[in-house]
């Protein structure tokens, strides 16, 4: 059975993943959405996402990222959680939290990752789950 794709919504009502996607080049946005669709159709543990969907490790363990390169070798990342039975969700869901972009050969700061995790913790603490509707 496939999974649903949902966007996390902050308490203030903004939808960071959508804002991020809106700011991406069209080709990057389309590729990221196609990866999400593929993973939703064949969720883990199946191989899915064409190599652009990866589990994260270390401090980001438990999170997943969609990894797409864009024009000028810029790197785009969309951060997600898997929620199998969250309160208020009818089906297992891929929760799209937010995104980041960086120039080639650079790293995201720990603070940037911490902000992603803060989104994730906010989502996981919401009952029912706070998603864009």
């Amino acid at each position: 059975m496939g999974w649903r794709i949902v966007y996390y919504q902050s308490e203030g009502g903004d939808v960071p993943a959508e804002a991020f996607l809106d700011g991406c080049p069209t080709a990057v946005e389309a590729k990221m959405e196609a990866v999400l669709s593929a993973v939703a159709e064949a969720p883990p543990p199946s191989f899915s996402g064409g190599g652009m969907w990866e589990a994260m490790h270390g401090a980001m363990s438990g999170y997943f990222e969609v990894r797409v390169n864009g024009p000028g070798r810029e790197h785009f990342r969309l951060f997600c959680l898997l929620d199998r039975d969250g309160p208020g969700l009818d089906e297992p869901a891929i929760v799209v939290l937010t995104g980041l972009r960086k120039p080639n050969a650079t790293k995201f700061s720990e603070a940037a990752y911490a902000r992603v995790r803060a989104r994730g913790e906010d989502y996981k603490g919401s009952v029912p789950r706070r998603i864009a509707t």
Partner: protein
Amino acid sequence: MGVDMSYRDRRLATRMDDPAFRAEYESAQRQIAQIDAVMRRLDALREEAGKSKAQLARDIDKNPATVRRLFSSEVNPELKTLVAIAEALDADLVVKPRSRRRKRVAA
């Protein structure tokens, strides 16, 4: 009653109205489907051969965790690793040109 989970579906449907987005999305879908199909076929061949992932890893001199992560899409597959897996499973990776007619239409 559950939460309305269709927000993303509606957004995607709206974005698909943009021809440039649709073309990129469909192209990405085709590329993703090909990679996923290769990985799933190799995993199916592994099962048909009765080999565990650990056994396959030994056959290609890789860490068992590497092969496990590879088949569960936790890491991006490298072509040389895929070729080694295919070799260990007595299979070939093949690139098949699309039909001449399709190429002419595309041109």
